[in-house]
Protein backbone atom coordinates (compact mmCIF):
# COMPACT_ATOMS: atom_id res chain seq x y z
CA UNK A 1 0.00 0.00 0.00
CA UNK A 2 0.94 3.60 -0.40
CA UNK A 3 0.05 6.48 1.91
CA UNK A 4 1.40 9.86 0.91
CA UNK A 5 1.85 12.28 3.79
CA UNK A 6 3.46 15.63 4.48
CA UNK A 7 5.96 16.19 7.26
CA UNK A 8 6.79 19.67 8.55
CA UNK A 9 9.75 20.14 10.83
CA UNK A 10 8.72 22.94 13.18
CA UNK A 11 12.32 23.30 14.34
CA UNK A 12 13.32 24.37 10.86
CA UNK A 13 10.37 26.45 9.70
CA UNK A 14 10.76 30.22 9.98
CA UNK A 15 7.36 31.21 8.66
CA UNK A 16 8.77 32.89 5.56
CA UNK A 17 5.72 31.94 3.49
CA UNK A 18 7.88 30.87 0.58
CA UNK A 19 5.81 27.68 0.41
CA UNK A 20 2.66 29.79 0.51
CA UNK A 21 3.80 31.90 -2.42
CA UNK A 22 5.15 28.94 -4.38
CA UNK A 23 1.86 27.13 -3.92
CA UNK A 24 -0.08 30.13 -5.14
CA UNK A 25 1.96 30.29 -8.31
CA UNK A 26 2.02 26.56 -8.90
CA UNK A 27 -1.71 26.22 -8.47
CA UNK A 28 -2.83 29.60 -9.74
CA UNK A 29 -5.02 30.31 -6.74
CA UNK A 30 -6.78 33.67 -6.66
CA UNK A 31 -5.99 36.42 -4.13
CA UNK A 32 -7.15 35.48 -0.66
CA UNK A 33 -7.03 31.74 -1.32
CA UNK A 34 -4.04 30.01 0.20
CA UNK A 35 -4.03 26.25 -0.12
CA UNK A 36 -0.81 26.25 1.84
CA UNK A 37 0.09 28.81 4.46
CA UNK A 38 2.20 29.07 7.58
CA UNK A 39 0.44 30.13 10.75
CA UNK A 40 2.30 32.23 13.29
CA UNK A 41 1.45 30.95 16.79
CA UNK A 42 2.59 32.32 20.13
CA UNK A 43 2.75 30.14 23.23
CA UNK A 44 3.23 31.49 26.75
CA UNK A 45 3.22 34.88 28.40
CA UNK A 46 5.86 37.59 28.56
CA UNK A 47 8.70 37.04 29.12
CA UNK A 48 8.37 33.28 28.90
CA UNK A 49 7.18 33.14 25.34
CA UNK A 50 7.81 31.00 22.32
CA UNK A 51 6.65 31.63 18.79
CA UNK A 52 6.08 28.80 16.37
CA UNK A 53 5.55 28.75 12.62
CA UNK A 54 3.17 26.03 11.58
CA UNK A 55 2.63 25.13 7.92
CA UNK A 56 -0.94 24.08 7.32
CA UNK A 57 -3.35 23.23 4.58
CA UNK A 58 -5.36 20.20 3.68
CA UNK A 59 -4.18 17.40 5.90
CA UNK A 60 -5.36 14.65 3.54
CA UNK A 61 -6.84 12.88 6.54
CA UNK A 62 -7.38 9.18 7.02
CA UNK A 63 -10.98 9.91 7.94
CA UNK A 64 -11.60 13.12 6.08
CA UNK A 65 -14.75 14.76 7.41
CA UNK A 66 -14.98 16.74 4.19
CA UNK A 67 -15.42 13.52 2.24
CA UNK A 68 -18.04 12.02 4.50
CA UNK A 69 -20.18 15.15 4.55
CA UNK A 70 -19.89 15.83 0.84
CA UNK A 71 -23.37 15.26 -0.63
CA UNK A 72 -22.15 15.00 -4.20
CA UNK A 73 -19.17 12.64 -3.90
CA UNK A 74 -17.02 15.38 -5.41
CA UNK A 75 -14.65 15.00 -2.48
CA UNK A 76 -13.03 11.64 -2.40
CA UNK A 77 -10.10 9.91 -0.83
CA UNK A 78 -7.74 7.98 -3.00
CA UNK A 79 -6.19 4.77 -1.82
CA UNK A 80 -2.78 6.40 -1.78
CA UNK A 81 -3.96 9.09 0.63
CA UNK A 82 -4.81 12.04 -1.59
CA UNK A 83 -8.10 13.72 -0.79
CA UNK A 84 -9.37 15.05 -4.08
CA UNK A 85 -12.18 17.26 -5.34
CA UNK A 86 -13.90 16.70 -8.65
CA UNK A 87 -14.66 20.23 -9.76
CA UNK A 88 -17.17 18.96 -12.30
CA UNK A 89 -19.36 17.28 -9.71
CA UNK A 90 -19.09 19.64 -6.75
CA UNK A 91 -22.22 21.72 -6.19
CA UNK A 92 -20.44 24.29 -4.06
CA UNK A 93 -22.63 23.79 -0.99
CA UNK A 94 -19.73 24.71 1.29
CA UNK A 95 -20.50 21.91 3.71
CA UNK A 96 -17.02 20.47 3.40
CA UNK A 97 -15.61 23.89 4.32
CA UNK A 98 -17.43 23.78 7.64
CA UNK A 99 -16.47 20.16 8.14
CA UNK A 100 -12.75 20.75 7.86
CA UNK A 101 -11.08 21.51 11.20
CA UNK A 102 -8.02 22.87 9.37
CA UNK A 103 -9.63 25.69 7.40
CA UNK A 104 -8.19 24.07 4.34
CA UNK A 105 -11.10 24.52 1.99
CA UNK A 106 -12.17 27.59 0.08
CA UNK A 107 -14.88 28.59 -2.33
CA UNK A 108 -14.67 31.46 -4.76
CA UNK A 109 -17.87 32.38 -6.57
CA UNK A 110 -16.56 35.00 -9.00
CA UNK A 111 -13.18 35.71 -10.53
CA UNK A 112 -10.86 37.70 -8.28
CA UNK A 113 -7.84 39.44 -9.75
CA UNK A 114 -4.85 40.78 -7.91
CA UNK A 115 -5.30 44.30 -9.18
CA UNK A 116 -8.97 45.06 -9.46
CA UNK A 117 -11.23 44.59 -12.42
CA UNK A 118 -8.96 43.13 -15.06
CA UNK A 119 -6.79 40.02 -14.96
CA UNK A 120 -3.10 40.26 -15.66
CA UNK A 121 -1.79 38.19 -18.53
CA UNK A 122 -0.64 35.32 -16.34
CA UNK A 123 -3.88 35.38 -14.38
CA UNK A 124 -5.81 35.10 -17.61
CA UNK A 125 -3.58 32.26 -18.73
CA UNK A 126 -4.02 30.36 -15.47
CA UNK A 127 -7.71 31.11 -14.98
CA UNK A 128 -9.77 27.96 -14.57
CA UNK A 129 -13.48 28.57 -14.68
CA UNK A 130 -14.12 25.07 -13.30
CA UNK A 131 -12.91 26.24 -9.92
CA UNK A 132 -15.58 28.92 -9.59
CA UNK A 133 -18.39 28.18 -7.18
CA UNK A 134 -16.90 24.89 -6.02
CA UNK A 135 -14.71 23.81 -3.15
CA UNK A 136 -10.97 23.96 -3.64
CA UNK A 137 -8.00 23.09 -1.47
CA UNK A 138 -4.45 21.80 -1.40
CA UNK A 139 -4.13 18.77 -3.63
CA UNK A 140 -0.67 17.74 -2.42
CA UNK A 141 0.07 18.70 -6.07
CA UNK A 142 -1.50 15.41 -7.07
CA UNK A 143 -1.19 16.15 -10.77
CA UNK A 144 2.56 16.70 -10.42
CA UNK A 145 2.94 13.58 -8.32
CA UNK A 146 0.93 11.47 -10.75
CA UNK A 147 2.83 12.84 -13.73
CA UNK A 148 6.10 12.19 -11.94
CA UNK A 149 5.07 8.65 -11.04
CA UNK A 150 4.17 8.03 -14.65
CA UNK A 151 7.71 8.99 -15.56
CA UNK A 152 9.13 6.69 -12.92
CA UNK A 153 10.10 9.49 -10.56
CA UNK A 154 9.98 9.26 -6.78
CA UNK A 155 7.60 11.64 -5.00
CA UNK A 156 9.33 13.68 -2.35
CA UNK A 157 12.71 13.07 -3.93
CA UNK A 158 12.46 14.15 -7.55
CA UNK A 159 11.27 17.75 -7.87
CA UNK A 160 9.07 16.84 -10.82
CA UNK A 161 7.11 14.43 -8.65
CA UNK A 162 7.00 16.57 -5.52
CA UNK A 163 4.54 19.19 -4.24
CA UNK A 164 5.52 22.80 -4.96
CA UNK A 165 5.68 23.77 -1.27
CA UNK A 166 8.24 21.06 -0.55
CA UNK A 167 10.28 22.01 -3.58
CA UNK A 168 10.24 25.64 -2.57
CA UNK A 169 10.97 25.40 1.16
CA UNK A 170 14.13 27.32 1.97
CA UNK A 171 14.45 25.76 5.39
CA UNK A 172 14.11 22.19 4.17
CA UNK A 173 11.33 22.06 6.72
CA UNK A 174 8.84 20.23 4.54
CA UNK A 175 9.02 16.67 3.32
CA UNK A 176 6.61 14.55 1.32
CA UNK A 177 6.58 10.86 0.73
CA UNK A 178 5.10 7.45 1.27
CA UNK A 179 4.41 6.59 4.89
CA UNK A 180 3.96 2.95 4.04
CA UNK A 181 7.45 2.73 2.61
CA UNK A 182 9.74 2.20 5.63
CA UNK A 183 12.68 3.52 3.62
CA UNK A 184 11.00 6.71 2.50
CA UNK A 185 12.22 10.10 3.68
CA UNK A 186 9.03 10.70 5.65
CA UNK A 187 9.17 7.31 7.35
CA UNK A 188 12.75 7.98 8.35
CA UNK A 189 11.93 11.44 9.65
CA UNK A 190 9.02 10.14 11.70
CA UNK A 191 11.14 7.33 13.06
CA UNK A 192 13.95 9.61 14.08
CA UNK A 193 11.89 12.44 15.50
CA UNK A 194 9.12 13.07 17.95
CA UNK A 195 6.03 14.32 16.23
CA UNK A 196 2.38 15.20 16.59
CA UNK A 197 -0.53 15.91 14.33
CA UNK A 198 -2.84 18.85 14.67
CA UNK A 199 -6.23 18.53 16.38
CA UNK A 200 -5.69 14.83 16.73
CA UNK A 201 -8.51 14.69 19.27
CA UNK A 202 -11.05 15.34 16.53
CA UNK A 203 -10.22 11.95 15.10
CA UNK A 204 -9.62 12.84 11.47
CA UNK A 205 -6.27 11.07 11.25
CA UNK A 206 -4.42 13.86 9.49
CA UNK A 207 -1.78 12.95 6.93
CA UNK A 208 0.32 15.91 8.02
CA UNK A 209 2.93 15.36 10.71
CA UNK A 210 4.83 17.95 12.71
CA UNK A 211 8.31 17.20 14.02
CA UNK A 212 9.26 18.92 17.25
CA UNK A 213 12.28 17.10 18.69
CA UNK A 214 14.65 14.33 17.87
CA UNK A 215 13.78 10.88 19.10
CA UNK A 216 16.07 9.30 21.63
CA UNK A 217 17.15 6.37 19.54
CA UNK A 218 18.52 3.21 21.09
CA UNK A 219 22.26 2.97 20.64
Amino acid at each position, binding site marked *: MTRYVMVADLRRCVGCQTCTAACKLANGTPPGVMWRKV*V*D*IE*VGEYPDVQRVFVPTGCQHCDEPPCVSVC*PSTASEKREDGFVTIDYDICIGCG*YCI*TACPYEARHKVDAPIWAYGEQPMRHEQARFDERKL*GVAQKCTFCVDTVDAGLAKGLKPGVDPDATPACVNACIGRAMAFGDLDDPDSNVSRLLRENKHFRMHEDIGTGPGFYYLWDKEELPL
Partner: protein
Amino acid sequence: MKPILASGPWPRLQRAWDVRAACNFMGGGAGAGLIMASFVGALVGQTWLASACLGLALVGFGLTMVFFEIGRPWRSLNVFLHPQTSWMTREGVVAVPLFGSGAIALAAGWLGWREAAIAALALTSLLAVGFLYCQARILRAAKGIPTWRNPALTPYILITGLTEGTGLFAAFHPSAAAVVLALLILRFIAWRRYRRALGQSGAPEASLDVLDRLARWLLIGGHALPGLLLGAALLLPQWPALAVFGGLLAAFFGLYAKLVLITRAARTQGFAIPRTPVRGRGSSRQAASRPGWASR
Protein backbone atom coordinates in the same frame (compact mmCIF):
# COMPACT_ATOMS: atom_id res chain seq x y z
CA MET B 1 -8.94 48.41 -1.36
CA LYS B 2 -9.21 46.72 1.96
CA PRO B 3 -6.19 45.01 3.40
CA ILE B 4 -6.43 41.28 3.76
CA LEU B 5 -6.52 40.72 7.47
CA ALA B 6 -3.69 38.97 9.19
CA SER B 7 -4.72 35.43 9.78
CA GLY B 8 -3.09 34.11 12.93
CA PRO B 9 -4.14 31.01 14.79
CA TRP B 10 -7.39 32.31 16.22
CA PRO B 11 -10.74 30.79 15.36
CA ARG B 12 -12.40 32.79 12.60
CA LEU B 13 -16.04 33.35 11.89
CA GLN B 14 -17.09 30.77 9.34
CA ARG B 15 -18.20 32.39 6.12
CA ALA B 16 -19.11 29.31 4.10
CA TRP B 17 -22.72 29.47 5.21
CA ASP B 18 -24.44 32.78 5.56
CA VAL B 19 -28.00 33.81 6.36
CA ARG B 20 -29.27 31.81 3.38
CA ALA B 21 -28.00 28.59 4.89
CA ALA B 22 -29.29 29.73 8.27
CA CYS B 23 -32.72 30.08 6.70
CA ASN B 24 -32.65 26.38 5.91
CA PHE B 25 -32.13 25.51 9.55
CA MET B 26 -34.67 28.08 10.63
CA GLY B 27 -37.31 27.19 8.04
CA GLY B 28 -36.53 23.50 8.15
CA GLY B 29 -36.70 23.27 11.92
CA ALA B 30 -39.77 25.39 12.44
CA GLY B 31 -41.48 23.93 9.38
CA ALA B 32 -40.83 20.36 10.43
CA GLY B 33 -42.02 21.16 13.94
CA LEU B 34 -45.13 22.78 12.57
CA ILE B 35 -45.90 19.77 10.39
CA MET B 36 -45.57 17.48 13.39
CA ALA B 37 -47.72 19.76 15.53
CA SER B 38 -50.28 19.84 12.76
CA PHE B 39 -50.35 16.08 12.66
CA VAL B 40 -50.83 15.84 16.42
CA GLY B 41 -53.45 18.55 16.18
CA ALA B 42 -55.20 16.63 13.45
CA LEU B 43 -55.25 13.55 15.62
CA VAL B 44 -57.07 15.48 18.35
CA GLY B 45 -59.42 16.92 15.81
CA GLN B 46 -58.05 20.32 15.18
CA THR B 47 -57.87 21.98 11.85
CA TRP B 48 -54.46 21.48 10.36
CA LEU B 49 -54.54 22.35 6.70
CA ALA B 50 -53.27 25.90 7.02
CA SER B 51 -50.60 25.10 9.58
CA ALA B 52 -49.33 22.07 7.68
CA CYS B 53 -49.26 24.14 4.55
CA LEU B 54 -47.20 26.78 6.31
CA GLY B 55 -44.91 24.08 7.68
CA LEU B 56 -44.19 22.75 4.23
CA ALA B 57 -43.73 26.27 2.94
CA LEU B 58 -41.19 26.98 5.62
CA VAL B 59 -39.22 23.87 4.77
CA GLY B 60 -39.43 24.76 1.11
CA PHE B 61 -38.37 28.33 1.77
CA GLY B 62 -35.29 27.08 3.63
CA LEU B 63 -34.30 24.75 0.84
CA THR B 64 -34.85 27.46 -1.73
CA MET B 65 -32.53 29.74 0.14
CA VAL B 66 -29.90 27.03 0.10
CA PHE B 67 -30.35 26.77 -3.63
CA PHE B 68 -29.36 30.40 -3.85
CA GLU B 69 -26.33 29.86 -1.65
CA ILE B 70 -24.66 26.96 -3.37
CA GLY B 71 -22.00 27.76 -5.93
CA ARG B 72 -23.33 25.56 -8.71
CA PRO B 73 -27.12 25.53 -8.23
CA TRP B 74 -27.78 23.87 -11.57
CA ARG B 75 -25.86 20.85 -10.37
CA SER B 76 -27.99 20.63 -7.26
CA LEU B 77 -29.27 17.19 -8.17
CA ASN B 78 -25.76 15.97 -7.36
CA VAL B 79 -26.75 16.47 -3.75
CA PHE B 80 -28.34 13.03 -3.86
CA LEU B 81 -25.16 11.17 -4.74
CA HIS B 82 -23.80 10.39 -1.29
CA PRO B 83 -26.45 8.90 1.01
CA GLN B 84 -23.91 6.50 2.50
CA THR B 85 -22.42 9.11 4.82
CA SER B 86 -23.65 12.59 4.02
CA TRP B 87 -26.43 13.96 6.20
CA MET B 88 -26.95 16.63 3.58
CA THR B 89 -27.74 13.97 0.99
CA ARG B 90 -30.01 12.30 3.51
CA GLU B 91 -31.73 15.59 4.18
CA GLY B 92 -32.37 15.90 0.47
CA VAL B 93 -33.47 12.30 0.23
CA VAL B 94 -35.99 12.86 3.01
CA ALA B 95 -37.13 16.21 1.62
CA VAL B 96 -38.38 14.78 -1.65
CA PRO B 97 -40.96 12.37 -0.17
CA LEU B 98 -41.66 14.94 2.53
CA PHE B 99 -42.95 17.31 -0.08
CA GLY B 100 -44.61 14.49 -1.97
CA SER B 101 -46.56 13.17 0.95
CA GLY B 102 -47.12 16.71 2.23
CA ALA B 103 -48.65 17.65 -1.10
CA ILE B 104 -50.86 14.54 -0.99
CA ALA B 105 -51.91 15.35 2.57
CA LEU B 106 -52.77 18.89 1.66
CA ALA B 107 -54.62 17.84 -1.47
CA ALA B 108 -56.50 15.14 0.36
CA GLY B 109 -57.30 17.52 3.18
CA TRP B 110 -58.44 20.15 0.76
CA LEU B 111 -60.63 17.61 -0.99
CA GLY B 112 -61.98 16.46 2.36
CA TRP B 113 -60.58 12.92 2.21
CA ARG B 114 -59.86 12.86 5.90
CA GLU B 115 -58.46 9.37 6.36
CA ALA B 116 -56.19 9.61 3.40
CA ALA B 117 -55.14 13.05 4.48
CA ILE B 118 -54.35 11.96 8.02
CA ALA B 119 -52.42 8.98 6.74
CA ALA B 120 -50.42 11.16 4.39
CA LEU B 121 -49.92 13.71 7.11
CA ALA B 122 -48.66 10.97 9.41
CA LEU B 123 -46.12 10.01 6.82
CA THR B 124 -45.23 13.65 6.23
CA SER B 125 -44.82 14.14 9.92
CA LEU B 126 -42.58 11.14 10.17
CA LEU B 127 -40.50 12.45 7.30
CA ALA B 128 -40.41 15.86 8.96
CA VAL B 129 -38.91 14.23 12.04
CA GLY B 130 -36.35 12.65 9.80
CA PHE B 131 -35.70 15.93 8.04
CA LEU B 132 -35.19 17.71 11.34
CA TYR B 133 -32.91 14.96 12.56
CA CYS B 134 -30.87 15.22 9.37
CA GLN B 135 -30.46 18.92 9.97
CA ALA B 136 -29.25 18.30 13.51
CA ARG B 137 -26.79 15.74 12.24
CA ILE B 138 -25.61 18.06 9.47
CA LEU B 139 -24.39 20.44 12.13
CA ARG B 140 -22.90 17.69 14.22
CA ALA B 141 -20.88 16.41 11.27
CA ALA B 142 -19.41 19.85 10.64
CA LYS B 143 -16.24 19.02 12.51
CA GLY B 144 -14.62 22.31 11.64
CA ILE B 145 -17.05 24.27 13.79
CA PRO B 146 -16.68 23.41 17.49
CA THR B 147 -20.03 24.91 18.43
CA TRP B 148 -21.82 22.80 15.84
CA ARG B 149 -20.11 19.51 16.23
CA ASN B 150 -20.84 19.27 19.93
CA PRO B 151 -23.26 16.32 20.40
CA ALA B 152 -25.31 18.32 22.90
CA LEU B 153 -26.42 20.56 20.04
CA THR B 154 -28.35 17.70 18.42
CA PRO B 155 -31.12 17.46 21.05
CA TYR B 156 -31.32 21.23 21.16
CA ILE B 157 -31.83 21.48 17.42
CA LEU B 158 -34.50 18.81 17.57
CA ILE B 159 -36.31 20.30 20.52
CA THR B 160 -36.12 23.87 19.32
CA GLY B 161 -37.52 22.80 15.95
CA LEU B 162 -40.44 21.19 17.71
CA THR B 163 -40.83 24.19 20.01
CA GLU B 164 -40.77 26.67 17.17
CA GLY B 165 -43.24 24.61 15.14
CA THR B 166 -45.56 24.09 18.07
CA GLY B 167 -45.22 27.74 19.00
CA LEU B 168 -46.37 28.66 15.52
CA PHE B 169 -49.13 26.07 15.76
CA ALA B 170 -50.32 27.79 18.92
CA ALA B 171 -50.95 30.87 16.82
CA PHE B 172 -53.49 28.77 14.94
CA HIS B 173 -54.68 26.86 17.98
CA PRO B 174 -54.09 28.59 21.31
CA SER B 175 -55.15 25.40 23.05
CA ALA B 176 -51.68 24.03 22.25
CA ALA B 177 -50.23 26.31 24.94
CA ALA B 178 -49.56 23.50 27.37
CA VAL B 179 -47.55 21.56 24.84
CA VAL B 180 -45.57 24.62 23.91
CA LEU B 181 -44.89 25.31 27.55
CA ALA B 182 -43.67 21.77 28.09
CA LEU B 183 -41.43 22.00 25.04
CA LEU B 184 -40.13 25.36 26.24
CA ILE B 185 -38.98 23.77 29.45
CA LEU B 186 -37.32 20.99 27.52
CA ARG B 187 -35.67 23.49 25.19
CA PHE B 188 -34.36 25.48 28.10
CA ILE B 189 -32.86 22.33 29.57
CA ALA B 190 -31.38 21.37 26.18
CA TRP B 191 -29.88 24.83 25.77
CA ARG B 192 -28.31 24.77 29.23
CA ARG B 193 -27.00 21.29 28.58
CA TYR B 194 -25.52 22.40 25.28
CA ARG B 195 -23.90 25.45 26.78
CA ARG B 196 -22.51 23.43 29.69
CA ALA B 197 -21.10 20.88 27.26
CA LEU B 198 -19.32 23.64 25.36
CA GLY B 199 -17.90 24.93 28.61
CA GLN B 200 -16.56 21.51 29.41
CA SER B 201 -15.10 20.73 26.02
CA GLY B 202 -13.86 24.25 25.47
CA ALA B 203 -14.82 26.38 22.52
CA PRO B 204 -13.68 29.50 20.71
CA GLU B 205 -13.95 32.31 23.22
CA ALA B 206 -15.60 34.62 20.74
CA SER B 207 -18.25 31.96 20.11
CA LEU B 208 -18.92 31.68 23.82
CA ASP B 209 -19.19 35.46 24.05
CA VAL B 210 -21.82 35.48 21.32
CA LEU B 211 -23.68 32.53 22.80
CA ASP B 212 -23.72 34.07 26.26
CA ARG B 213 -25.09 37.32 24.92
CA LEU B 214 -27.66 35.26 23.05
CA ALA B 215 -28.42 33.24 26.15
CA ARG B 216 -29.58 36.37 27.99
CA TRP B 217 -32.07 37.16 25.23
CA LEU B 218 -33.04 33.55 24.95
CA LEU B 219 -33.65 33.30 28.66
CA ILE B 220 -35.81 36.38 28.87
CA GLY B 221 -37.42 36.62 25.45
CA GLY B 222 -37.28 33.01 24.41
CA HIS B 223 -38.18 31.23 27.63
CA ALA B 224 -39.21 33.37 30.61
CA LEU B 225 -41.55 35.72 28.79
CA PRO B 226 -43.26 33.15 26.58
CA GLY B 227 -43.34 30.79 29.56
CA LEU B 228 -45.22 33.42 31.56
CA LEU B 229 -47.54 34.17 28.68
CA LEU B 230 -48.25 30.50 28.07
CA GLY B 231 -48.69 29.85 31.79
CA ALA B 232 -51.10 32.75 31.94
CA ALA B 233 -52.86 31.39 28.87
CA LEU B 234 -53.43 28.13 30.70
CA LEU B 235 -54.92 29.99 33.63
CA LEU B 236 -56.85 32.42 31.45
CA PRO B 237 -58.08 30.38 28.47
CA GLN B 238 -60.50 33.16 27.67
CA TRP B 239 -57.52 35.22 26.51
CA PRO B 240 -56.21 33.21 23.58
CA ALA B 241 -53.97 36.07 22.57
CA LEU B 242 -51.71 35.12 25.47
CA ALA B 243 -51.04 31.73 23.93
CA VAL B 244 -50.68 33.22 20.47
CA PHE B 245 -48.06 35.73 21.62
CA GLY B 246 -46.37 33.17 23.85
CA GLY B 247 -46.12 30.71 21.00
CA LEU B 248 -44.88 33.30 18.53
CA LEU B 249 -42.28 34.57 21.00
CA ALA B 250 -41.04 31.04 21.64
CA ALA B 251 -40.81 30.50 17.91
CA PHE B 252 -39.20 33.84 17.15
CA PHE B 253 -36.40 33.48 19.66
CA GLY B 254 -35.82 29.90 18.62
CA LEU B 255 -35.39 31.06 15.06
CA TYR B 256 -33.21 33.97 16.11
CA ALA B 257 -31.01 31.64 18.15
CA LYS B 258 -30.46 29.47 15.10
CA LEU B 259 -29.60 32.48 13.00
CA VAL B 260 -26.99 33.41 15.59
CA LEU B 261 -25.73 29.83 15.88
CA ILE B 262 -25.17 29.58 12.15
CA THR B 263 -23.91 33.03 11.28
CA ARG B 264 -22.37 34.66 14.33
CA ALA B 265 -21.44 32.07 16.90
CA ALA B 266 -19.88 29.69 14.41
CA ARG B 267 -16.15 30.04 14.58
CA THR B 268 -13.64 27.69 13.12
CA GLN B 269 -11.45 25.41 15.14
CA GLY B 270 -8.45 27.70 14.68
CA PHE B 271 -4.90 26.43 14.72
CA ALA B 272 -3.15 25.04 17.74
CA ILE B 273 -0.18 22.94 18.62
CA PRO B 274 0.14 20.78 21.69
CA ARG B 275 3.77 21.78 22.22
CA THR B 276 6.55 23.92 20.84
CA PRO B 277 9.50 22.62 18.86
CA VAL B 278 13.04 22.39 20.18
CA ARG B 279 15.12 24.95 18.31
CA GLY B 280 18.71 23.84 18.45
CA ARG B 281 19.54 23.33 22.11
CA GLY B 282 16.40 25.12 23.23
CA SER B 283 13.53 23.50 25.04
CA SER B 284 10.01 22.48 24.21
CA ARG B 285 7.04 23.51 26.26
CA GLN B 286 3.49 22.32 26.28
CA ALA B 287 0.87 24.75 25.14
CA ALA B 288 -1.47 25.54 27.98
CA SER B 289 -4.43 26.24 25.75
CA ARG B 290 -5.57 26.63 22.18
CA PRO B 291 -5.25 30.19 20.91
CA GLY B 292 -8.56 31.98 21.21
CA TRP B 293 -10.27 29.15 23.11
CA ALA B 294 -11.88 29.18 26.52
CA SER B 295 -13.46 26.70 28.87
CA ARG B 296 -16.10 28.38 30.97
